[in-house]
């Protein structure tokens, strides 16, 4: 009997337009709830539909709050959620993996007029987004601290490095690393003692994510190495960027941080 009803009905209906009709009001409060739904016995369903609106909007705001806790701490929960709501409505996720969401949030903050008084906020958000990328990045063993010891000194300049999957450089015109660190720890937020620009290196050599401040020229140096430039070239570019650049200290620092997984020397060189 049920089969008969089904086969009769099949001839009458296509019925796959429901998603196109159901979704437009979800993230747009100006759009009226869809006409294809109702409560039981044809009851009105405005508040009922609003449950879905609320679930979608609030859960996505929560996702941003989870990814950007320091950003939220700086501006306060109320401001953050109001700002996040606008971003969620403008740029909802394009992937079901919520830990990938929020890649446009820092740029959004940069252009958000109510956040102009906090020019460093976007860079803190950038740092937080990179932190989460490092957290979920592929596992890989970093180079050991003595990895360069076996390379003859005259060949060191030709050495190239493979970046660790978690390693990222974040540059800022503000003390973003310090502000990030102050607002990501559990205790009370301490006093900000610096106004200097700060570049950060984010790494995850094992399971813990580390964020450290890079010395002068360090960001340019690491970005060159991560782009596959040989060590000699990276040193030259870094010195050009900042004459205070210290090659030995930076090489030791990047090895300690776990920013690279392999080193190779071209032209018949060996590891």
């Amino acid at each position, binding site marked *: 009997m049920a089969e008969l009803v089904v086969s009769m009905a099949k001839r009458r209906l296509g019925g796959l337009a429901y998603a196109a009709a159901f979704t437009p009001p979800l993230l747009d409060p100006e759009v009226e709830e869809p006409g294809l739904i109702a409560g039981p016995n044809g009851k009105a369903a405005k508040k009922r539909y609003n*449950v879905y609106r609320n679930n979608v909007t609030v859960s996505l705001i929560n996702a941003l709050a989870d990814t950007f806790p320091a950003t939220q701490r700086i501006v306060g929960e109320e401001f953050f959620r109001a700002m996040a709501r606008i971003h969620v409505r403008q740029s*909802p996720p394009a992937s079901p993996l919520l830990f990938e969401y929020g890649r446009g949030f820092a740029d959004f903050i940069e252009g958000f007029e109510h956040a102009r008084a906090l020019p460093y906020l976007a860079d803190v958000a950038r740092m937080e987004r990179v932190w989460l990328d490092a957290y979920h990045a592929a596992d890989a063993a970093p180079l050991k601290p003595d990895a360069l010891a076996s390379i003859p000194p005259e060949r060191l300049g030709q050495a190239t490095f493979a970046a660790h999957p978690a390693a990222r450089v974040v540059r800022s015109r503000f003390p973003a690393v310090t502000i990030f660190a102050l607002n990501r720890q559990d205790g009370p937020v301490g006093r900000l003692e610096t106004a200097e620009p700060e570049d950060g290196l984010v790494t995850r050599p094992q399971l813990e994510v580390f964020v450290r401040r890079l010395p002068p020229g360090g960001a340019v140096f690491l970005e060159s190495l991560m782009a596959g430039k040989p060590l000699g070239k990276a040193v030259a570019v870094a010195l050009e960027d900042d004459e205070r650049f210290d090659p030995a200290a930076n090489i030791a620092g990047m090895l300690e941080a776990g920013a690279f997984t392999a080193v190779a020397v071209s032209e018949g060189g060996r590891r």
Partner: protein
Amino acid sequence: MAGMPIVNRVEAARFPAFPVGGAAGASLKPEHLAAIHADPAPVGFFEIHAENYMGAGGPPHAALAAIRERWPVSLHGVCMSIGGPQPLDKDHLKRFKSLVDRYEPALVSEHLAWSTHETTYFNDLLPLPYTPATLDRVAEHIEEMQEAIGRPILLENPSTYVVFKESMLAETEFLRALVRRTGCGLLLDVNNVFVSATNHGYSALEYLADFPLEHVGEIHLAGHAEQEDDEGALLLIDSHDGPVTDAVWKLYEIVIGRRGPIPTLVEWDSDIPGWPVLKAEAQAAQEILDRHAVSQIRGAAHG
């Protein structure tokens, strides 16, 4: 999103094949990890939301591997969008398969719902009309997923707040047809039954009487919240933010009494309590399962 690294193909079972029959389990929450490992007898199994473990590496995978070494794991997908009209996301299918291969879950499930339309992911379990057209489409999606991961799935009944005017089939009828067509099993969420029955003014007992219990491979229990609909009538929200209510426990006991022990999960996803509170909820389910396991054995011995 394309090109997520796929984990190494598994040649042989790397984890013990723990049994999950008759066991009560709990949602796995990162904040409980230390307490769980320190607990000499936590719960029978742990369930994870698949999408939270679809990153390439890092602490989530390390934590899950450590859990899977010691206990069975249930892999619960939240956003395959099986109930949506558009084709399934092939990358997401691949990621799901790689999790199945990597962790050898005891149970694998998804929802009769959808969450993606065109390219937007809405992060909610959205409802669908029950019509011949949607039945065809959902059946195709289940078959595609089962083909992709190489094993049958359990499909979960949803909690809903609205009905579609075009719906022509009862939800139970829709689910039964999907089981028949695709060979999938069912995940009976008793809280969803209670929430939907309340919201739509039908009897939860009648729904359960019509539910194909013989195909249920897992049960979900969870807490819900109360709101009001447009006319001020009670509207229940599937919030997973509190203990299982008395009414849901009663329905659960009826289901287990009728079917015997079925692996049962207590879900708690928001306002997450300390481990002892969640564990106590799972233990309450375990007591009901054990009581009916004993009565089943007695019944068999005497019958």
